[in-house]
């Protein structure tokens, strides 16, 4: 049946994308939110939405990153977390840099997203723009300010 085939095809494609991207997306969202539950919810929901939308999404890779960050941002806003909780230790390797995550949690949303995507996901300014919806101008500003603030918070050991 054509309708069934059409319904299955996007899910297969999205599953391949999930296998390629989901771990990195989850870790980026975890660094962004300092909350494993928020990261998990954002990853699951963004891929669920991608499956539902199927071929209506032109660039699924950019879409899941963008929607993941927006879902996480919205959830953080909903929780009114002006100061984010410390990382959930159950997900953290003993060697994980909790100092870095704690410093990240003190950056504004835009700066935190730009810094995480640049330093962890190796994304260019253009790619960060696509993945967050910020203009390239805003990405540059957020990246510059976020980098400076992060260095200050980490004791300026990375100058």
């Amino acid at each position, binding site marked *: 049946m054509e309708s069934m085939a059409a319904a299955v095809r996007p*899910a297969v494609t999205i*599953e391949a994308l*999930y296998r390629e991207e*989901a*771990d990195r997306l*989850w*870790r*980026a969202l*975890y*660094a962004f939110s300092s909350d*494993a539950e928020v990261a*998990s*919810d*954002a*990853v*699951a*929901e*963004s*891929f*669920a*939405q991608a*499956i*539902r*939308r199927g071929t*209506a999404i*032109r660039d699924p890779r950019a*879409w899941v990153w*963008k*929607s993941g960050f*927006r*879902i996480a*941002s*919205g*959830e953080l*806003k*909903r929780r009114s977390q002006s100061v984010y909780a410390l990382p959930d230790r159950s*997900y*953290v*390797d003993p*060697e*994980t*840099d909790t100092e*870095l995550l704690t410093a990240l949690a003190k950056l504004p949303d*835009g700066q935190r997203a730009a810094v*995480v995507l640049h*330093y*962890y996901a190796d994304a260019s300014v253009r790619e960060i723009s*696509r993945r*967050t*919806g*910020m*203009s*390239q*101008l*805003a990405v540059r500003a957020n990246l510059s300010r976020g*980098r400076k603030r*992060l*260095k200050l918070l980490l004791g300026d*050991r*990375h100058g």
Partner: protein
Amino acid sequence: MDDLYGRFRRLDRIDAPDLWREAVGRAAAAETTGLPRPTQGLTGILVVALLLALLAGVVAVGMSQLPLVVGEERLIVVSECALTSVSLEDGAERIILGGPDHCIDAGANLQTHTGGGRTALRTTCGACFGFGTAGTQWVGVVDLSSGDARELDACRPGEAPVCLGDISISPDGTRVAYTRWNLATDLPELVLADLDDGERRTIPLPVLPFTGISWMPDSETVIVSAGEERAGRLVGQLYRVPFSGDPALIVEAEGIGLGPVAVSPDGRSVAYVTAPLPARAEVRLASIDGSRSETVWQSSARETFVGISWSSDSARIAVTEVPRAQMTAPLSVHVVDLEAGTDATAFTTDGVCCRQFTVATWSPDGRTLRIALDLADVRGTLAIPVNGGGPVQVLSEELAIGWAPAP
């Protein structure tokens, strides 16, 4: 290399959970919800008219007649799982509403209307009439400053089926008007709600709510288009409905349905669209008391959707014309100058129209029109100079759905 890279690399040591089954489960749960289709009480002509009216809404994104708000220009944008506010000056973006509960499918049927620092939203009605998207249909108001969202009405799977129609927020942002169709009682209704004191009125509509609600500038009265069957013929009607008072009929049009309506910013006139399918759509202009009415624009094609918006000086109307079968002809935007009595085409797509589009709306200074399109090769929001010059893409990818002053 900056040592920050090295510190971020250590994130790879964290075990990420496998969430694929969870994602598939969520997608499946959303697909399997559904609502019954209406089966009783509608005559054939009215069923066709209602479906056409609803279809007009389904093919477009944000078919509202957006008001013009003078102030710093910010776009209200819907995109992946968020409603955001974007400055045209520096591109700075602020999320107004986001999260898993707000993955609004812009391609389904989203309507928004901004006024007084608030945006009124309606999400898809797909489930009610089998247009494909199941799930909760919702109307509510979002505060553009705080992001606080307030639900006003909803139809949820398993509850009494209600189809929610147009929603419009008053210019001062204190009141909302929307239409709903209770499928259990087969009754269409206009709901007026005061957002501050909670007062709420429900007014029965004659037969059909079409696709038009527009507030008067004083935020006291709403103009709504409806319809009635009389001796087997459809009669389109425009009503003036005070927030506290009885509705008054101001225009009646035999044999045709009425579509979108828009009250002029000076409050003296109301523009409305006639939809005499399969004939050509017209834009008509009536005085607010209905004492005079004239045709100011007529489509050159048959079976088109027509959306309208006023310039802030009440001197011009932008007419967005889209073929109902979207992929068969171009989209075009016309400017009707009421004082000069002219009609000029300001913009037309190079090829056939689009997967999604918004009705063109005016910038506060009246120099440009903004429209969001999803074409084969371009997706984004365009600024169209009214007095000549090519369109400029002001946002890529993003589909802007409204204008608002900076909160």
